[in-house]
């Protein structure tokens, strides 16, 4: 529950110009309540840093033993374009921005094993049928 009794504290704040983002460690103190969801964290951080909700990427939240306090990491990008460029695909998919791969894992592995039997351009062009 996102009641007002939740406190957010940022630690180890750093502006990473190379990756066009701000990164920090986040401490969420929520006594008596369950852990904050990532969406709620995004809203709070967007309000705090006056940034777009879409450019905030939280991850790695772990609740302390006994409850009441959880720690995680947050990245706030300057623009959505830089986010799309630098963030790993799975985090973009989490937010619905990136597209998930269509091929299933099983299919990919089978294809790889089939290609292991071929050599050179056959891997690209496919195997030529043997002429009688």
């Amino acid at each position, binding site marked *: 529950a996102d009641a007002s009794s939740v406190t957010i504290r940022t*630690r*180890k704040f750093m502006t990473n110009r190379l990756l066009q983002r701000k*990164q920090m*460690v986040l401490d969420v103190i929520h006594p008596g309540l369950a852990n904050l969801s990532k969406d709620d964290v995004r809203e709070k951080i967007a309000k705090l840093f006056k940034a777009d909700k879409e450019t905030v990427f939280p991850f*790695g939240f*772990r609740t302390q033993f006994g409850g009441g306090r959880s720690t995680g*990491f947050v990245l706030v990008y300057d623009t959505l374009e830089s986010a799309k460029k630098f963030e790993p695909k799975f985090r973009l998919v989490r937010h619905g921005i990136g597209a998930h791969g269509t091929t299933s894992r099983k299919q990919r592995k089978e294809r790889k094993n089939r290609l292991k039997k071929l050599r050179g351009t056959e891997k690209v062009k496919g195997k030529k049928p043997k002429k009688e």
Partner: protein
Amino acid sequence: MVQGDMSAEVRSKLSVLGTQAEQVRLLVDKLRQRVDEGELATGNGISFLEVKHHTMLSYITNLTYLSLLKLHGRQIEGHEVVSHLIEDRTVLEKMKPLEQRLKYQIDKLMRGAVISSDAAPRPMAATTDDPEANSVVDDSAKLAAAMLSDDTLANPSAFKPNPGSLAADVREEDEMAIEEGLYRAPKQMPVHYEEEGNTVAKRERAEQRMMDRAARSRLVRDLMTEYDDRPEMSSASGNPSTVIKDSRMERLAEDRTRYEEDNFTRLTMGRKEKRGLRTKLAGLDDEFAHLNDFAGIASLQKTAESSGSKAAILDRLKQMKLKDNESPADKARRRRKGGRDSDDEFASSSMPQGKKGKFQAAKRRMSKR
């Protein structure tokens, strides 16, 4: 000789040169006399050196002729003396590297010649005799002694190949056995078995680990609480659980969180670690758990042997416990200081004590005989 206008200095120098040349001529005449009489044998020398001497002589002769021509004011250009000089010079230059290569041989022959020259009235030709053959009290013997007493590093011709060492070491019994036809196994003296470096290190590490585990065992901790002066810590719940403040675990956890926050990642915990954590958190130990945990006794005995008194043992165990609880700064300081507790794997007290022990004594007796 053209006198002309020469200063007094040049004249005096020339007169000195003249007298010295006179002396050299006398010496050379004497030497030539001796050679003619057959006292000095010049037949079996090193031909290389002969060639060198002859070329040098012709070079010098041609040089003097050239200087004579110059003094008389004659033309030198195109004179055959020049070509002779060039020829001799090239020969000498080509001989220099060869001489370098023959240096060792020449030195050896020189030494042999010097020693054997005064052993007999008729000096022998330079042969590759054993330089340590004769010792005669004489001038040349003194010179020879000086040459021999050179440092072997400075005098590389002291090293001689020893073909005798190529022969196989066949002892008497083996020779007899081979002759008789019946094979008898050779009786060999037992030699101390040196463990390979890797296994030694592994063994040392395993022993160290045993010692550490012993220091943390129930038995040792009870001993320490019994003899320690500090007030005893007990848990708030009253349950005399064994682990109240395990600073080692705390330190590990702290290290992990620090790494995670610095690198913006989350570390995964393996299956074994999770299991260990679960058992630790359960904390179902009571007073009677682990009473039969005697793993520490063997290592305690070894420590007792090496250090002696009970106080020493307790001190050592306390040190080990402190080692567990120390911060990274203390650890770095201890490592830098060195000494016994500086994490040296081989500074364990369980090494074999010098020449004690039955086997070592037996070995000493055999070597004495």
